[in-house]
């Protein structure tokens, strides 16, 4: 195999052409909302180093900012005192002219039972006293996919099914004519063991 290493290295050095811009736009349109579920947001200290996003993605960027902004507004509206007992560093958010330390993602404990990121279910339940009605939840099955038969060490093979759900919860406050909707994607994997033929 030794004689092939150089050849492999040489082949790897050849890079296939990138997809055309038109094709990327087609893919973006086909992806629709699912293309915006995962967004990377990185603080960039040198704004000149990061060029402006291309015009066609500006709407996506705005949508991303809107979601983050909305989450922040909801958080501070529900908990005006904030998590003031935390003194951990808050990155570039420390530049904000606030008297109390700013809660950051690194100090916010994630509560799996709460559908709102950064808000525990206990904190959420307190809001019900302020005119919020009981939340309404639904589970939407998006897709079921059969991923074929998988091998399991020491066990018979199994057929693998993946279920994609969207968990939606809606809180309403009729008095304030306000509602909060939380949508969280979730997936479950089901393994059905296959019995060997006798």
């Amino acid at each position, binding site marked *: 195999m030794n004689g092939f290493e150089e050849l492999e290295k040489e082949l790897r050095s050849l890079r296939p052409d990138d*997809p055309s811009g038109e094709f990327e736009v087609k893919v973006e349109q*086909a992806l629709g909302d699912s293309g*915006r579920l995962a967004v990377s947001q*990185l603080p960039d200290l040198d704004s000149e180093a990061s060029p402006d996003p291309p015009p066609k993605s500006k709407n996506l960027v705005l949508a991303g900012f809107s979601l983050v902004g909305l989450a922040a507004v909801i958080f501070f509206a529900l908990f005006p005192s904030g998590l003031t007992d935390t003194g951990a560093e808050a990155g570039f958010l420390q530049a904000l002219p606030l008297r109390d330390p700013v809660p950051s993602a690194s100090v916010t404990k994630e509560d799996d039972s709460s559908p709102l990121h950064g808000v525990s279910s206990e904190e959420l339940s307190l809001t019900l006293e302020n005119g919020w009605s009981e939340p309404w939840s639904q589970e939407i099955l998006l897709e079921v996919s059969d991923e074929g038969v998988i091998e399991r060490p020491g066990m018979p093979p199994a057929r693998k099914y993946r279920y994609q759900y969207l968990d939606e919860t809606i809180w309403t406050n009729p008095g304030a004519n306000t509602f909060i909707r939380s949508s969280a994607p979730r997936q479950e994997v089901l393994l059905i063991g296959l019995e060997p033929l006798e």
Partner: protein
Amino acid sequence: MNSSSHTVHSQPIWKSWFAKHGGKLLLFARQQARCPDDAEDLVQEAFVRIWRLYGHTGEVAPGLVYRAIRRLAIDWARSLDRRKIREQKVFADTPFASSFERELERDERNRALLQAVDGLPPEQKEVLTLKIWADLTFDEIARTLDLSLNTVASRYRYALAKLKDRVPATLKDEPKAPYPHHDS
């Protein structure tokens, strides 16, 4: 609210993922589809399906998309209208090297290598493509192509052996000036 010069660079994760893998997916899809238009459709369909399933996690294993391309190509080839199109197309319409136009411009050595790859039997070429350019493991390739691990590994070895034989040794040693120059 914040007067500092900090900015936030934000973009959907699929874009960086696609920038990294899109060209390789197209390369594989061209071999499966034999027709450039079908190749783009294959990549789009497969990628969108998989990203809708797993994209929210922010990471998608490339092997899943390659496998989806493969299965879609088989499904499409079975459908009547696409079969007609496929039969009308000549295999040589989309030589392997056409996916590397940028590389072809560089030197003769690259051209010779890519032409040699193009001359491989399709079953060896697809294994080589998945191993070299898609960077999949033999296990992932076996699952993508529904083959045994041994078959995949032997096809890969055969492919490399053929390439080694077919690419002229002179080009190997002297990629820039393969043949002596005679001015007179």
